[in-house]
């Protein structure tokens, strides 16, 4: 009686010897068992980062943990409660080997000839969507439409790898790939023309007034500026000033003004100014 009383006063440790022995190291999705000691019935609880369950167990027997119960990497708390109190034990589940990559590439459109304009960040995940924190070598490749290719293997630190590259001189579609072993993820980066360069306009008088047209609008690397880019034509004559914002179509922008007398025509696109044209009267 005295032994039982003292056992009750001092708590769980002495009560019927119930104890938990979780695995020392565990990988996500790896079935395992938790050994128990003691005798009698107890309630077992497992609190994990993505899963919690409870079951009645016989002390002294092993408690099996299936794939689904240990799929999420993180901290697990196992609790065993019997009539005389509760015991708990901690263990950690680490991620499995990489099975997928999350790859963020920026930007989706980039002007040509820009330094460090393209960047990519990759995170390796295992098949249970746990972030793999162990070092993994990811191969970043940038392939442009004209055949230029860069490859940069990078080892992850804290589960992340990143890289930067310049955009090429020529407009077109570039493929950005992040690969680990057989896994690869692809992104597309549009390399587009930069600001218009050497914007030039020519004009002539017609029966209806003045017809003005730009030369093919290109950037400083010779890439044609995409259709839809706005070119602002301004015509100034003694009657006043006229302007029209005209989108480029098939590489050139055209506009018509009704001025009969002498006129000065100027052109601009964005913050780039072009030449000025002086036309005499009819």
């Amino acid at each position, binding site marked *: 009686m005295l032994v039982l009383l003292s056992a009750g006063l001092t708590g769980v440790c002495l009560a019927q010897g119930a104890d938990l022995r979780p695995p020392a190291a565990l990988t996500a999705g790896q079935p395992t068992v938790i050994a128990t000691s003691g005798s009698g019935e107890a309630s077992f609880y497992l609190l994990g980062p*993505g899963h*919690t369950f409870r079951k009645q167990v016989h002390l002294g027997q092993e408690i099996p943990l299936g794939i689904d119960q240990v799929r999420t*990497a993180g901290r697990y708390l196992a609790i065993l*409660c019997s009539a005389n109190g509760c015991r*708990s034990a901690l263990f950690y589940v680490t991620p499995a080997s990489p099975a997928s990559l999350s790859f963020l590439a920026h930007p989706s459109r980039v002007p040509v000839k820009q330094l460090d304009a393209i960047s990519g960040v990759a995170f390796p995940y295992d098949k249970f*969507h746990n972030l793999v924190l162990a070092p993994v070598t990811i191969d970043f490749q940038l392939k442009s439409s004209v055949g230029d290719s860069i490859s940069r293997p990078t080892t992850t630190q804290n*589960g992340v790898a*990143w890289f930067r590259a310049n955009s090429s001189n020529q407009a077109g579609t570039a493929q950005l790939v992040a690969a680990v072993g057989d896994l690869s993820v692809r992104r597309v980066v549009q390399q587009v023309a930069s600001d218009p360069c050497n914007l030039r306009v020519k004009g002539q008088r017609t029966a209806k007034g003045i017809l003005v047209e730009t030369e093919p609008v290109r950037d400083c690397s010779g890439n044609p500026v995409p259709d839809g880019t706005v070119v602002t034509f301004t015509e100034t004559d003694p009657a006043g000033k006229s302007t029209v914002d005209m989108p480029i179509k098939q590489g050139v922008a055209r506009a018509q003004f009704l001025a009969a007398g002498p006129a000065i025509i100027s052109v601009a696109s964005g913050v780039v100014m072009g030449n000025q044209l002086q036309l005499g009267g009819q």
Partner: protein
Amino acid sequence: MRPHFALARISSWSALSKIFILSPVFIAFFWCGPRTVGADSMPANSLPQVQLDARNAGPRTLENLTQQNIGRHYANAWQNLAAAFEHNAPTSLSDYFVGAAREQLGQAVADQQKAGLHSRYRDQRHKVDVVFYAPEGDIVELHDSVECDFEVFEGEKSIHHEPAVLRYVVLMTPSADRWVIRQLQAVSQF
């Protein structure tokens, strides 16, 4: 006349007596009666302490305003997480958790409720290091060492209680008006 008067007097006395007897009953009911355990009726957890250190952030430098926002939103996220686990309310996670983090935590809360448990994270003190800030500023990785008082209950009975030191690898991304947690993964050490 007398019987009517008596009847009236008895009626009014009955009505009055009903009011006087029942009022304390109602008051007692609303004051001490059963309460619905839920996030709305329990007092809100206070905002956890978060100390954010961005000196090691790279390759991009973390701007001051961004640092303040991340710290504030991370604290809010943990406050919501604590509420979700304490009141078994997975909807508390929807504001600051997305993707895998929300799925996993939501499942954990649902399972916890099914098992008749709830857990409590009290007196949280987070020491957060920014270890990665993407070149485009669209993702940040944090290492969080959190000290808190962690307790697990089955009904009203405490089955586990510890002053815990937890370590998390956290991925946060910006959404429409806040930073949200995309990955919250506990590790034994950084």
